[in-house]
């Protein structure tokens, strides 16, 4: 046995071990690639928020049916599509100059807590592909890219680290990646890219299954999980690796296993267990998976989460991706999001967490009944919309509109009861005031979190910026 030990680990003598430094330095080094290009000084913006909850309205939420209502035209057979801007009447909110679309009555009550941006302009990427626009929104860069761009959650995880070491820094709730045709596109940006998978997303596709992801599996059970762990450590200690020390690779393995074990046995993991939430509170959120995801986001932020994304889920032609029957489906989608989002805001406020938590509600683009893509440019139409409607299923925002969308921001030092940006009241409902690009929106979000928009990481000897080429500028007018 001894001989083989020497064979195996002869090269791993003390000489090597000493030369490479102590285990602690090695661990630090190992976590260090890729390194911050500008050095830690750059991150010294004073953060206004410690956590970010991103509520993703996947599929292209129609802004004129939600946060930016226009003239309402009720349905009637024979109605020309060109006459319709909104298919719902607008409703008053607690803020005088903000009207919302009918169906958002709960949100109407909390609009005095946040900022509504009606002038979000996403990229103009030609022939529409949802996953591509989502990639752009989540990374700041439209694909394809010559290096693997990291998701915003990974950038935040890498730059700020976890708030609580037992809660993954980047949690992604509600998106199944195996959705058929656009799976590849979704996988391409649900990643930490070149930052390395240490900073990648911790996935929870269905909140009700989250406990299973953060506890030893049901099949294994806690007792067996622990005895297996103990024996495993005994086994490693009994072998030559345990006797002869280690290099940074094996250090990283040991560290990762310890981290995972700690997470799976941590009391903090209770945050993932919705059955621990009082029934009354649970029901306030329970409009389905998205609502439960909002509740989980609140519990996670209470427990010390850094970045949580909750999505209504992107599946082609479903949820907010209303290619037909848009009006009826918007009713359902608003029911799914209205109560849980408003409850999340109220709960965070009640717990004194809203000031230090940023809640962002966004989508990859807006919608229109007739204009596809960007007005004035010819983008291939994907949806047949009759000039004259004959059935209720023709009534709705069925085309993809990239010229204007709405974004809501609550907490985290943003103004309260504030309306920013304006769109035209006649088609095409373009931005007419204060456009906010993805770059600038991201710069604003990053700034709120204390991350300078031109923070960069080195990849292939060049800087890669957290906002596109470091050019994003925070919209100062949005901060209180």
């Amino acid at each position: 046995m001894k001989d083989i030990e020497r064979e195996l680990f002869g090269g791993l003598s003390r000489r090597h071990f000493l030369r490479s430094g102590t285990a602690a330095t090695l661990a630090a080094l190992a976590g260090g690639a890729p390194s911050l290009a500008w050095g830690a000084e750059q991150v010294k913006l004073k953060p206004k928020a410690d956590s970010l909850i991103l509520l993703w309205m996947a599929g292209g939420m129609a802004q004129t049916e939600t946060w930016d209502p226009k003239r309402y035209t009720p349905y009637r057979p024979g109605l020309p599509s060109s006459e319709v801007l909104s298919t719902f009447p607008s409703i008053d909110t607690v803020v005088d100059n903000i009207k919302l679309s009918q169906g958002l009555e709960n949100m109407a009550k909390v609009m005095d807590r946040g900022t509504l941006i009606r002038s979000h302009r996403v990229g103009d990427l030609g022939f529409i592909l949802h996953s591509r626009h989502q990639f752009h929104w989540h990374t700041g860069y439209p694909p394809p890219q010559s290096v693997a761009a990291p998701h915003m959650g990974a950038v935040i995880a890498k730059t700020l680290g976890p708030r609580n070491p037992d809660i993954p820094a980047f949690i992604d709730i509600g998106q199944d990646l195996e959705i058929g045709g656009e799976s590849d596109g979704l996988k391409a940006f649900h990643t930490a890219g070149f930052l390395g998978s240490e900073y990648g997303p911790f996935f929870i596709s269905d909140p009700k299954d989250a406990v299973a992801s953060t506890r030893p599996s049901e099949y294994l059970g806690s007792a067996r999980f622990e005895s297996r762990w103990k024996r495993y450590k005994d086994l490693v200690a009994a072998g030559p690796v345990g006797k002869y020390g280690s290099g940074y690779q094996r250090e990283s393995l040991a560290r990762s296993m310890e981290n995972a074990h700690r997470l799976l046995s941590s009391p903090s993991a209770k945050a993932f267990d919705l059955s621990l939430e009082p029934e009354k509170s649970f029901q306030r959120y329970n409009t389905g998976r998205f609502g439960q995801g909002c509740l989980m986001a609140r519990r996670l932020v209470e427990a010390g989460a850094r970045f949580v994304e909750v999505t209504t889920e992107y599946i082609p032609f479903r949820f907010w991706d209303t290619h037909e029957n848009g009006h009826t489906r918007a009713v359902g989608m608003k029911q799914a999001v209205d109560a849980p989002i408003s409850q999340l805001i109220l709960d965070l406020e009640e717990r004194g967490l809203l000031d230090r938590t940023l809640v962002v509600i966004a989508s990859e683009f807006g919608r229109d009944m007739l204009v596809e893509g960007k007005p004035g440019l010819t983008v291939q139409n994907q949806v047949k919309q009759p000039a004259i409607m004959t059935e209720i299923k023709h009534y709705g925002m069925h085309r993809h509109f990239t010229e204007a969308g709405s974004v809501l921001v609550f907490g985290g030092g943003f103004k309260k009861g504030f309306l920013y940006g304006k769109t035209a009241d006649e088609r095409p409902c373009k931005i007419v005031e204060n456009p906010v690009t993805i770059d600038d929106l991201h710069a604003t979000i990053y700034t709120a979190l204390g991350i300078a928009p031109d923070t960069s990481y080195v990849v292939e000897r060049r800087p890669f910026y957290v906002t596109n080429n470091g050019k994003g500028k925070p919209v100062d007018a949005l901060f209180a």
Partner: protein
Amino acid sequence: MLRLAKFCLLCSIAGCLASAADSDFTNVIHPVLESCVKCHGGDQPQAGLNLQTREGMLKGGKSGPAIVPGMSQNSLLVKHITGELEPRMPMGGAPLTAQQISVIRAWIDDKAPWPDMSAKGSGGWQSPIPPRTPPVPPGSESNPIDRFLRVYFQSRNVTPAGVVSDAVFARRAYYDVIGLPPTAAELRRFLNDSDSGKRDRLIRTLLDDSPAYAENWISFWNDLLRNDQGVNYAGTRESITDWLRPALQTNMPYDRMVSELVNPEPKSPAEGFLVGVNWRGSVSASQTPFMQAAQNTAQVFLGINLKCASCHDSFINRYRLKDSYGLAAMFSEESNLELVRCDAKTGKFTGPEFLYPELGSVPKDASLAERRAAAARFFTSPQNGRFARTIVNRYWQRLIGRGLVESVDEMDNRPWEEDLLDWLASDFVAHNYDLKHLLAQIMSSRAYQMPSIPGVPDHTAKYVFDGPQVRRLTAEQFADTVSVLTGEWRILQSSEKGVSRAEFSREWQLKSTALTRAMGRPIRDQVFTTRNDEATTLEALELMNGETLEHSLRRGARRLLNELPPAPPNRFDSGVIRKASRQFDIDISGVKQLWLLMEDGGSYDPAQTQAGWINVKLTGPKGTVDLASLPSVVKFVKKNLTIDNKKTPGVMTVALPTTLTYNIDGMGFTRLRGAVGMDDSGRRNDIETAVRFFIFTEQPDRDELVRVTGEPPVPPPTHVKDANGLIDRLFLEAFAREPNAREREIAVEFLLPEGSGGKIQTSGLEDLLWSLLMHPELQYIH
């Protein structure tokens, strides 16, 4: 002197001042200057001041030199960016931050070092283009690599270690050639072989196993060539697997491989490489298919990074925008391309030009076919020494853990042993670009067979070779190792033109999973030339708690203990159908249960699929019964669908995927007749539905719905009742050694816990397998 000062301090210790200053320039200084060169750059810079080069800064503009090296306080640049002098710069833009200004000050005070953007590497060394065959130093070593290294060691007063044991060597060799560990039987046979030439013989035997070799190395090439089976971004990307796999199996010479990739025959599946990764919609000028082709061919085949130079003249190397467009013009429909700088047209054009004009030229008006053919000639030209050096270096890095040149994508950097690199490259060419020969050449060297040393995370530190580095198993190798240990292989089910097939498969053939992605299998949107060998928390979570591994281990343990019942055959398999219907008529005499499966066959949107069971009837002595009238636990909805353009009422529809089960025990039915089908009326723009139906008369094995044909990649382990025999085999295959006394004790505790009465416990075996798989000795190649 903020960041710079710190950097220099650190680096003078490490002795790599120059490269750190370069990296500071690129990453700290240049980004700040970029806001200046928008106006003070190009052909007609504002005020005659060109801040794109150091010379331009020293020459200055109308008011004099922009910088005085060593004296930031006297530098006009500083005076204007601070606003001390009007106008404050950047004019019309936001003022620089205090931080940015102090970095510029520090840089000027440090004498404004400007990295050499020419081809020169450190110490004035320049990467040569022509090949070179240095004489092999005299000596007794049979492998020339070792003769070069003897000189190398002598000049550094290093006494190299000996070679590793046969067992350690065998484990390395198996993983490096076929990506699997030796089985216990193979390892024992090798260890018992007393022939002195057995190591070289093993290398040869492994390389001769062409299918297995191809199944390991295909992942390396997939990473390089951005190939991923079944990942197509809604049809805009083409797989090259049908070309690549045979190319590896037949050991196609490397120069021919590259010729076929850059100049594919019409309709050759190799075309996918030039097609690149395309997403629907418009793309940035730097990411058009031909610019991707320029970036990828330069990076993969020549170790040149043109990514920066695809937008603007690079500031990390000597390549210019024009170089990228010149190469791109060999792959574009248009032979004369307009240079686009950062998505702004420049009005300048370039025709096809290779990166090394000395290798030849191609007429501006040449057809695309001629230009591609020329590209193939230039890349693979015998005068292009860079071509062979680049791949030889990649293989060295793959086998030794660290390249002769680092990074492997920057072949302008100086190798740590130039003669060795050049000789290896020319030997590779002399052997007709034979990739297997290259593997054998390196693996048979003492250099490869020395004891391993721990890898280092920082490849910029000074490096002295004293053995191969510890390397991590790839995600694919890890998954395949699980299969070798358990005998449980994943099954690839396919159905083409009505023919159903199921075969044992190795991991690379399947789409990536959460587990393999966490373990480092890349999303191949970009070229990947190395994988991270560091373990991560997310990956550990998958390994500790993920469904994929748990499932494999549960099945694997039962398989090893002969507790896994054979998978029952299906009685009906519709194959993947995309429209219309299929009929079935099955003898069900004596059948007790029916299992009706509706599975997704790769639908674009499974949730919108409208499909189901049509008019299913059971016939027995008492007549015919409608299946829908029998009690069912699982709910279905009867719908009227349009199938084969006919209204079809009463179709039993379920969500995809759903299994309907029926208990028909004792009912005396003898026949099951009916059809399956899908609605083809509502097929909209890009909804593609694909469904597969099965009928079973016993509980199906979901991992094996179709009878598997063929043999598993490695013969299945025999079932063992004896705990010690099992432990020996597992240790030999996991670690290439037997357990020590304490390890055996622990293994026995796993398998035969108190109260087991000497019978191996399935759960204990699962846990032992898990512990071996998590073991650093397994996850790394030592």
